[in-house]
């Protein structure tokens, strides 16, 4: 028995043969050529490498969709190169025209390759295994022996040894083939890629993502107006928003002694429009699911409870101020604006430190993310906040151009303490609550993408592990002499394993044949 090169075995492929030049005078000639070029394996391979290469900047540079702040910082520190890189979409790689061009061409090339291959495969599934080649001995694996049995007996033995193979007998010859699922799997995998792209597109067009920050005791409803940040798809309609509301009862985090976070829990009550309110625990990896909408816990922080009184002692503000964490130990910053204290407007830049430490130079810091020794450190400004002009302002920034500092030093408050301001007004730091950020998403393409993913893995397994192979038997009957049996086989992949399988089949055929 011999094993030859697998060059020969590649004949088993259903891959279309490369076609030569186009006919002369064909007006569509150049178009045909272009199409052939695009759908050729070489081009597909090139596009595949281009796709990988094009993703590289997206893997190293900050991306606007993930972290707009870091993009601004990057452009700020790279004054000359930054704007140029921005113009080349290097901070929006995955929505850039060049990235889209590559993957669209790749998918066109894929479809162009898939259609003829599917047609060929469907045809191959219907056709019978091909006739026995003229010279069985020249096949990559072959064997030959003599027996006293009749052709029918040999054929019966052969058929018994070839269970699971597709068989066709032509007089003294038997053709067998199996492993059609390899190409089926291959096609399923590639079709699934197209389906995946459709799923992604469905989500990008009809989906929606909204983010909202909620302090303890407050809530939000799933409406456009509730969200601090909204990313709707291009074809998103607000009427598809699932009507429900969520109220944050309390946010709770626990930490290991070294400051590593152990658990995050947002205890909420939620209700559908007009429905009964139910308790739920939104955690990381444990979103709240209401119909097609999923609510995730994506961030948290501290919200000092403050009460502001004017000179007459009347409460003009009583609320929780969300402070944004700047360090893993939750040194947080926030801004407090008080435009309604009679006669004067106050603004504060605040540091909140849950477990406060003070260094040698008197700077405050936080040494632990949990609430052990909270301090609210305020720098007060008096003057014009600029909020009356009607231009929208961020609640996290304070414009002090028309203001002056109240004290030369920052003022530290412990819970319960009050900061007396000039003119008789005061700010009291009552206690500390927390806030949580929720993200609500609706993605109509998710299920499609999941089905595609299953198809990809299934198809891949079939196409990599099913082996397509053919086997032929020819029985030669000489007048008065013994019957000669010739067996040969051909496998496209894994020639070694096929050689073993072939030897096994031959042994089975021979032993059962000899026993008579």
């Amino acid at each position, binding site marked *: 028995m011999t094993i030859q090169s697998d060059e020969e075995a590649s004949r088993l492929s259903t891959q279309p043969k490369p076609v030569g030049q186009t006919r002369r005078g064909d007006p569509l000639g150049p178009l045909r050529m272009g199409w052939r070029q695009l759908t050729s394996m070489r081009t597909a391979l090139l596009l595949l490498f281009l796709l990988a290469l094009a*993703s590289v900047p997206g893997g190293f540079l900050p991306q606007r969709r*993930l972290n707009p702040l870091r993009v601004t910082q990057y452009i700020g520190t790279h004054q000359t190169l930054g704007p140029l890189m921005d113009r080349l979409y290097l901070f929006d790689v995955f929505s850039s025209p060049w990235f889209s061009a590559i993957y669209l061409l790749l998918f066109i090339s894929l479809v162009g390759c898939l259609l003829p291959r599917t047609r060929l495969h469907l045809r191959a599934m219907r056709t019978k295994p091909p006739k026995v080649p003229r010279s069985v001995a020249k096949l990559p694996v072959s064997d030959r022996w003599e027996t006293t049995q009749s052709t029918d007996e040999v054929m019966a033995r052969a058929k018994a040894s070839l269970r699971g193979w597709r068989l066709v007998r032509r007089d003294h010859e038997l053709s067998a083939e199996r492993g059609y699922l390899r190409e089926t799997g291959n096609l399923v995998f590639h079709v699934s890629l197209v389906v995946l792209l459709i799923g992604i597109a469905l989500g990008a067009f009809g989906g929606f993502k909204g983010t909202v920050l909620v302090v303890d005791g407050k809530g939000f409803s799933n409406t456009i107006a509730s969200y601090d940040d909204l990313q709707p798809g291009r074809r998103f309609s607000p009427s598809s928003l699932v009507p429900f509301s969520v109220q944050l009862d309390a946010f709770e985090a626990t930490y290991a002694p070294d400051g590593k976070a152990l658990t995050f829990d947002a205890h909420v009550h939620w209700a559908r429009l007009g429905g009964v309110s139910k308790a739920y625990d939104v955690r990381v*990896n444990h979103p709240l699911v209401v119909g097609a909408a999923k609510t995730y816990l*994506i961030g948290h922080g501290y919200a000092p409870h403050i009460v502001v009184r004017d000179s007459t002692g009347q409460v003009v503000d009583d609320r929780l101020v969300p402070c944004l964490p700047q360090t893993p130990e939750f040194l947080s910053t926030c801004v407090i604006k008080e435009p309604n204290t009679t006669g004067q407007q106050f603004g504060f830049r605040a540091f909140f430190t849950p477990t406060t430490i003070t260094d040698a130079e008197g700077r405050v810091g936080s040494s632990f993310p949990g609430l052990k020794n909270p301090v609210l450190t305020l720098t007060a400004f008096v003057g014009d906040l600029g909020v009356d002009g009607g231009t929208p302002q961020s609640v996290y920034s304070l414009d002090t151009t028309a203001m002056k500092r109240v004290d030369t030093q920052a003022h530290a408050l412990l819970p319960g303490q009050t900061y007396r301001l000039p003119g008789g007004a005061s700010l009291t730091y009552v206690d500390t609550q927390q806030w949580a950020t929720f993200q609500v998403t609706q993605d109509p393409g998710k299920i499609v993408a999941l089905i595609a993913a299953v198809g990809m893995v299934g198809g891949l397994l079939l196409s*990599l592990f099913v082996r397509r192979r053919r086997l032929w038997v020819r029985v030669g009957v000489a007048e008065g002499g013994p019957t000669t049996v010739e067996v040969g086989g051909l496998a496209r992949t894994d020639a070694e394993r096929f050689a073993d399988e072939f030897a096994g089949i031959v042994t089975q055929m021979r032993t059962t044949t000899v026993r008579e």
Partner: protein
Amino acid sequence: MPNQALGQLGDALLFAAVVVYALAMLGFAGEQASRKARRAVTAVRAESKVLLGAGGPPVLVPEETVTVERPSRAGRFALALTLCGWFIHVTSLVIRGFAAHRVPWGNMYEFSSAAALVAVTFFLVLVARGTVERGLGAFVMLPVVLYLGLAASVLYTAAGPLVPALNSYWIKIHVAAAVTASGSFLLSGVVALLYLLRSRYDDRLADRQQPRFPVSLGAQLPPAAVLDRVSYSIIAFAFPVWTFAVIAGAIWAESAWGRYWGWDPKETWSFITWVLYAGYLHARATAGWKGRKAAWVAVAAAGALIIDYYVVNIFVVGLHSYA
């Protein structure tokens, strides 16, 4: 609370495994060296064989598997050491799991250890099945020892609980698949490099040139066709596993972060790795790309995997920058 004493036992065992692997590597190298002396005699015969094969279709029959030499004691001892190291390695991971009360692949230190274990397991399976000679061990154990050394020194983390983002049953599925695929891919990368070395060595011989170091190491290697096939079969195994790992990661991301794909740096590099391995599988079946070019693709893909692991976890800011 994690059991620190048990955790330290696990660390000590991993260290022992690295030492045993290093000794095994020396054993394999010793066997190679003693064989090299004998092989010099048959060099002329080998050369004529290569010339016969040149230009024709790739010859699938391993040219030098006909080992008439008596089995080397150093080699057998090295294989026994590898097996021994493997057992110690497995034990260290199991103990680590008990110490931390969770699956032992929750941070980079543990991930590296588990991935190296996959690579060694794969190598042992290949040797047991007779696909490769154990002599390849010298080339395989070197990166394994370096990789584990890096894990135990730079990436070391004491046994502890997981950060909340990782606290999900998906860590068992997604990370286990990622570990299996990574360990296998890294091994295939090593084999692809060895293939490139060996095929260059064959070229030199065909040109009747005396190969110089490091190309001369090719004499110690299995035939190029064998290396090519081994590298392919490892990738054919690992690619669906990696595909599954990425998909499981996407499903997990959907339940943890609210979207199944967001081009986070880790996702981006996993995608690049995936695309390059897909490219390798296609390249190997495309005329003009077979052989060396395809092997370079496999090496580039392993490079992307290394970036995905080390660079993204340590230097790039993203959702995976923990541990």
